[in-house]
């Protein structure tokens, strides 16, 4: 179990093999324990290598939630395997999916009963251009971000969240049936109000506690990669700051009945990203938004490291592109710290990335990625 890890032993990936995964027919990659960098033009499969590593950690793709769409076009199955070193012992992680069947996930040839047992074994943080969804997308993206971080350390949190979702579905179904059948029964509604409160209140408390610890870390990291005079904020927006869950539900009862949907609760929580006192979404430049996201992810890395007491892997997907020189320097300084675990980088330009790798000053390997083939340079 992950709880017993000690600080001296980061998890290290040694080899990765792919069969029919995304644009790869077959690939076998040996990687080094420090920095691995994949270069090549867009669309050749650099990012897919990182996604395969992400798969082995979280049992799903970072980019495409529909498992079967990660099988190579026209093929019947995919396999992703990784050989890791953990506490001096080797760990073989296997993930296989056949079309129309349940995904298989094995650790040292033994299949997991539940995928959630695996999550947390390989601590990992992904930084990708698609993270911009966190700023530009809907509130669900931001809730998923914090839920994903908290759930890795707090199995009860995930249970509460799942039970909350189920209670919410029940309550919404009831509101709909009231309206369709033109009746109302207070006690029938009240029992689901209590369930929402029972599971929702602890989720609110955990989110609150997490952000209290997380925000200072985040601000520290932003300070490291951005100019000194910029300040950033992160606000947890929730109606639960204003009153107890049951009171909120009671206040909104008439409205909920009218719209046939539960209009208030932790499923409406959001994070507001701020630059100075303005929303980042409208007032931040592209560079500032990039720094904000990078700081968010590095803070996640730091938070995971503290909670897990181990160094997570970090996957930097096309991060150095369009990042101004100061920010590149700051990022190099950060990742060259011995505190960082294994690093995986993708970039379109070997000319740009090689000087950066040299500056990081750790052992590194460069790979060329071309049409689903990976070769050591």
């Amino acid at each position, binding site marked *: 179990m992950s709880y017993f890890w000690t600080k001296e032993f980061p998890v290290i990936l040694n080899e990765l093999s792919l069969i029919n995964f995304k644009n790869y027919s077959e690939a076998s990659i040996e990687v080094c324990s420090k920095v691995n960098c994949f270069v090549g033009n867009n669309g050749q499969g650099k990012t897919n290598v990182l996604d395969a590593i992400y798969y082995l950690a979280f049992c799903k793709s970072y980019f495409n939630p529909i498992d079967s769409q990660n099988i190579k076009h026209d093929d019947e199955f995919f396999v992703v395997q990784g050989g890791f070193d953990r506490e001096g012992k080797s760990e073989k992680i296997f993930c296989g999916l056949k079309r129309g069947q349940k995904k298989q996930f094995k650790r040292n040839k033994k299949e997991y009963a539940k995928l959630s047992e695996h999550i947390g074994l390989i601590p990992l943080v992904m930084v990708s251009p698609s993270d911009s969804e966190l700023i530009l997308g809907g509130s669900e993206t931001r809730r998923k971000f914090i839920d994903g971080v908290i759930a890795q350390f707090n199995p009860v949190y995930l249970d509460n969240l799942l039970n909350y979702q189920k209670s919410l579905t*029940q309550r919404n179904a009831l509101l709909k049936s009231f309206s369709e059948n033109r009746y109302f029964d207070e*006690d029938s509604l009240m*029992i689901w109000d209590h369930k929402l409160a029972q599971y929702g209140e602890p989720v609110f408390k955990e989110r609150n506690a997490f952000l209290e610890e997380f925000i200072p870390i985040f601000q520290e990291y932003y300070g490291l990669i951005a100019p000194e005079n910029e300040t950033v904020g992160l606000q947890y927006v929730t109606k639960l700051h204003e009153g107890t869950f049951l009171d909120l539900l009671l206040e909104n009862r008439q409205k909920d009945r009218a719209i046939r949907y539960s209009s208030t609760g932790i499923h409406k929580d959001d994070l507001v990203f701020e630059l100075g006192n303005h929303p980042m979404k409208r007032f931040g430049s592209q560079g500032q938004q990039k720094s904000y996201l990078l700081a968010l992810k590095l803070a996640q890395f730091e938070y995971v490291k503290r909670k897990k007491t181990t160094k997570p892997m970090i996957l930097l997907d096309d991060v150095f592109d369009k990042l101004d020189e100061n920010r590149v320097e700051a990022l190099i300084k950060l990742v060259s710290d011995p505190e960082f675990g294994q690093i995986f980088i993708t970039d379109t330009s070997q000319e740009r990335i090689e000087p950066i790798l040299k500056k990081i000053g750790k052992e590194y390997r460069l790979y060329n990625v071309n049409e689903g083939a990976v070769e050591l340079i």
Partner: protein
Amino acid sequence: MELPSKYLQEAVEAIASLPGIGRKSALRLTLHLLRRDNLEVNQFANAITSMKENVKFCDTCGNISDGPKCNICTQSKRDQSVICVVEDLRDVLAIESTQLFQGLYHVLGGIISPMDGIGPSDLNISSLFGRVESGKVSEIILALNATMEGDTTSFYLYKKLESFECKVTSIARGVSIGDELQYTDEITLGRSIQHRTPFEQTLSR
């Protein structure tokens, strides 16, 4: 796969419509029936049709019965003042097997779940209030499964029973949440029937 006989096809489809039985198992069972004597197969089919035609539900408690009253409600030595509320027959059998409960039952026939279209009026609930109104009942024991829907159904019944004189209790539960009564061992279940607690205590978390 196309089967060589439409009669075989129909039988396989009928058996495969049972929960937990896939087409492969259905074909295996059907071929087995085909090899049996005509008489045996007739008896098999009759058992099912006459079960469906003749089984009734007890007027009083909703349990499965061959007559208007079930064989528990008709036992005069049972304590008429205590009623144990359960989801279905399987829970009755589990509690009976402990031999530690002497009262009567009330079988709901399901639990409240709006997303499955099951509300209080779809369950055998109103007749429970009728039994309590008669004034002969001193205690209602809520013994529904400790799932989310079981809990909410218990809470609903508790709210509706608050206005009556009778005591509402809940069977004591171990640490495991989500336990189903039928899978709890006899000793544990027996103990929890004996050590029941007032329902309002289970509300304070």
